[in-house]
């Protein structure tokens, strides 16, 4: 694919800004338009949170199950580890068997941690 290799300059990244501008433009347009077009009638009942018609009690900003935090924390860890595999995967052929074995060890560690987490019951949602 030599033909695609060209000199990169910062302006090569301009299209992304165009796309961003287009997307942002649409979003802002839509939000402003709906704001201007729609009717506005305020009332207390309408402003209340809609919780299946039941009177809403207290604030929604209550603590939630720690499992969600656990999932988030685990995600951060695993995601970074997975991102590490990307450069390896791209250069997989160059590294050859050695690289494969090294990644094997790496994955072994990752899996060890993974199984530990599973056995600890962090991912049990029942």
């Amino acid at each position, binding site marked *: 694919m030599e033909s*695609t290799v060209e000199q990169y*300059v910062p*302006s*090569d*990244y*301009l*299209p992304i800004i*165009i*796309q*961003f501008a*287009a*997307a942002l433009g*649409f*979003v*802002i347009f*839509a*939000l402003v*338009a*709906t*704001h201007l*077009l*729609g*009717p*506005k*009638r305020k009332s207390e009942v*309408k*402003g*209340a*949170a*809609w*919780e*299946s018609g039941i009177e*809403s009690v207290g*604030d*929604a*900003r209550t603590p*939630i199950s720690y499992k*969600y935090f656990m*999932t*988030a924390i685990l*995600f951060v860890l*695993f*995601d970074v580890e*997975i*991102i590490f*595999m*990307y450069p390896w*995967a*791209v250069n*997989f052929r160059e590294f*050859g068997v050695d690289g*494969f074995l090294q*990644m094997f060890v790496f*994955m072994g560690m990752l*899996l060890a941690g*993974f199984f530990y987490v*599973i056995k600890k019951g962090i*991912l*049990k*949602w029942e």
Partner: protein
Amino acid sequence: MESVDLIYKAIYILAIFGITLLIATYSTYFERKIAAFIQDRVGPNRAGPLGLLQPLADAGKLFFKEDFIPSKSNKALFIIGPGIAMLVAAMSSAVIPFGDNLIIDGHVVFLQAIEVNIGVLYIFGVVSLGVYGLMIGGWASNNKFSLLGAIRAASQNISYELAMGLSLIAVLMLSGSLSLREIAAQQAGFNWNIWYQPLGFLIFLVCAFAETNRTPFDLPESEAELIGGYHTEYGSMKLGMYLFAEYINIFVASAVMATLYFGAYNFPFMEDLRAAISDPVLANNVVTLVGVAVMFAKIFLFIFFFMWVRWTLPRFRYDQLMKLGWQILIPLAILNILLTGGGILLKDYLF
């Protein structure tokens, strides 16, 4: 980059953006039509012939609804939420090659908004930002159902992102590149990755469903449990943007799957077609345009698949969903990596 190129690029980008919106809009129509078909009904048929104007009517209705903000919510975040969701969804298609290059007036124009050598990472990065949209919206609503929906959405998204990322690694090992265009180009003709990566594709497919919050993974917005999930409190175009974002995500996910596994714009006998036309420029352009058609055909196929599944499969339970994501897909994906690695090495060793 020359300014002419830039103008071509700009036109292309706007075109793709328009097409994206259009497809997203009409996805709703197809969704209902397919649902009707599967359930042996007629579906939308009032607005326009065959109800074809129904999506536009819907969009118009959304625009004219009251732009309502609940009194207890966090106003700024309440508005930003859907904005982010939409923005991110619209950004994600930037690196997808919808076709090969067109030669217009001597200028070579690639049918891809931008070529970066980390295309896969770009998609990943941008798509995972989408979860902020849901999370912010759900939290800002200050409604317990919204919050629960948002959190579910977030944890579901991040969980399946892992398996998705892992399943991609196998593809990257094959391609040796992170550039989507290069990956697409490598699958010239009928040399599609799906032949080498059936398991990887399956995992990716499942993850794609989960990432887009589609049935059977639509727990964040399951009507029966959470009313509407994170967008319970939303109305008018803000709700519209959440829905739009979801359909755009389906479109992008389909495009990515087509690119990564189904050869993107490549089709069998591509070279034969190219050879059949004598003028190289014309040949190139014709092949490219056919390629674009093929690409969109593949995308539509996937979109259809998304809808088909929606009306076929029941919803998961949340624990089943998490179990599937963490305990089945991730090990499977790692297994897939090992198999792929072993296979590649074996092949290099033998030949």
